[in-house]
């Protein structure tokens, strides 16, 4: 699945990496995003490959 789900956390941003489990990206968001958190579904190409400053990443709706 070439999509990711991102949502804000107290420390920055969390990125959900889907497994091949038979659920759609929307079903995964409903299941694995903490209740009440806003989230975005993005293309995997939108995720930076350089994690040097991973903990400084921020969520932008």
């Amino acid at each position, binding site marked *: 699945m070439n999509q990711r789900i991102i949502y804000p956390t107290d420390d*920055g941003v969390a990125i959900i990496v889907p497994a091949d*489990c038979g659920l759609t990206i929307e079903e995964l968001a409903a299941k694995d995003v903490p209740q009440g958190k806003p989230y975005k579904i993005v293309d995997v190409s939108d995720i930076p490959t350089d994690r040097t400053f991973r*903990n400084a990443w921020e969520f932008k709706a």
Partner: protein
Amino acid sequence: MANVINGTSTGSGGLIQTGDDSGVLNIQTNETTAITVDASQNVGIGTTSPDALLTVNTIASFGAGAAATPSIAAKGDLNTGVFFPAADTLAASTGGSERMRIDSSGNFQFNSGYGSVATAFGCRAWVNFNGTGVVAIRASGNVSSITDNGTGQYTVNYTTAMPDTNYSVVGATNSDSRTVSIGNLVASNSAMRTTNSGGALEDQTLIAIAVFR
């Protein structure tokens, strides 16, 4: 239904043959067909249309048997098959020795080099993923996703949640002197961290997690 079956004999044996040209033999009691032998010599019990050499339409019951003499065995290999060592219990043997069992509580037990037939505890979830670059899952079972929470910080989300939080998580990485440690365990997911030899959070290229319960 008259004159359906003819009886005759040859030598010391016996023979029952159909009295018509259908090639089918039906044996009835109380005016209901109990056994059918069709024109292809397939035998049906409880059915007049057997689709194999022996077809039993409802339940067939067998004696308990034993490991050396299983109730259901292969032709020419009578010490290999299925038997019933106790009530509500199913077992299988090969070469006359018990190899596996499903007990009355539903526990699956097997030998497979253990030395005796004992309860096997299943791996309830597993995942192998790359925690560097764009985090990616290589393969998994009963894992719906990994949440990348930051450098060396992940959550493993289960497709089917654990029955409680008293499960065991085993983790490993392919880097020397690196550590995989678990954080908060809840039924639906497990938090985990990967650290370097100095204890600082660090991403790893191969992280493998297995969950047992």
